[in-house]
């Protein structure tokens, strides 16, 4: 079955460093991947989307890459701040009909220390 997997180990980094989170997918080829942020006790919030024909996408301090050969997306936060501490979720549609469901990875918890 189609799967999205993220490193379940928490990532702890120092303020100002770059955080890199990994998302791997198996048994399908998504046309795009999405990244969401989830704070404790809150719903996911959309951050970025990258299409399979895009190698890289940027938004302010965020950068996402998409490698269809490795079946992987990397999510980078540069110049990280304590306020970036949250769980980051990778998601995609399996079937590309309008309104099709998203499936989510288990998320990677990021902690940025001052």
């Amino acid at each position: 079955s189609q799967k999205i997997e993220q490193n379940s180990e928490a990532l702890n980094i120092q303020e100002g460093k770059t955080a890199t989170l990994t998302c791997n997918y198996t048994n399908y080829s998504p046309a795009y991947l999405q990244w969401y942020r989830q704070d404790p006790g809150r719903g996911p919030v959309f951050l970025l989307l990258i299409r399979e024909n895009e190698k890289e996408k940027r938004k302010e301090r965020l950068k996402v890459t998409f490698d269809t050969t490795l079946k992987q997306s990397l999510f980078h936060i540069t110049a990280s701040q304590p306020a970036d501490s949250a769980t980051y979720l990778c998601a995609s549609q399996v079937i590309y009909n309008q309104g099709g469901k998203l499936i989510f990875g288990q998320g990677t918890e990021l902690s940025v220390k001052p």
Partner: protein
Amino acid sequence: EPEVTQTPSHQVTQMGQEVILRCVPISNHLYFYWYRQILGQKVEFLVSFYNNEISEKSEIFDDQFSVERPDGSNFTLKIRSTKLEDSAMYFCASSARVSGANVLTFGAGSRLTVL
């Protein structure tokens, strides 16, 4: 900025009781979803709803669950005869009708505790 509103934020119920979780999606969105997140686990798809009917449902969404859009604004999830394992955060989400990528806007969630 438009948002998805969910009520109640927290509900405690006894096993075997029925609960109704309510959602007000973004007004011009056409697709509606319920997801569930058990503590410490991933966000899991339950059901999607379009044009007043279920468009897709997961294995989790069995006869115990039902969804309804009783009027033009509310979208509800009913859980009949709750079980201990139904304890979770339930998220409502909606999306606009766009081609290609389906970006979801989530509500803040309803925490259900079954005792």
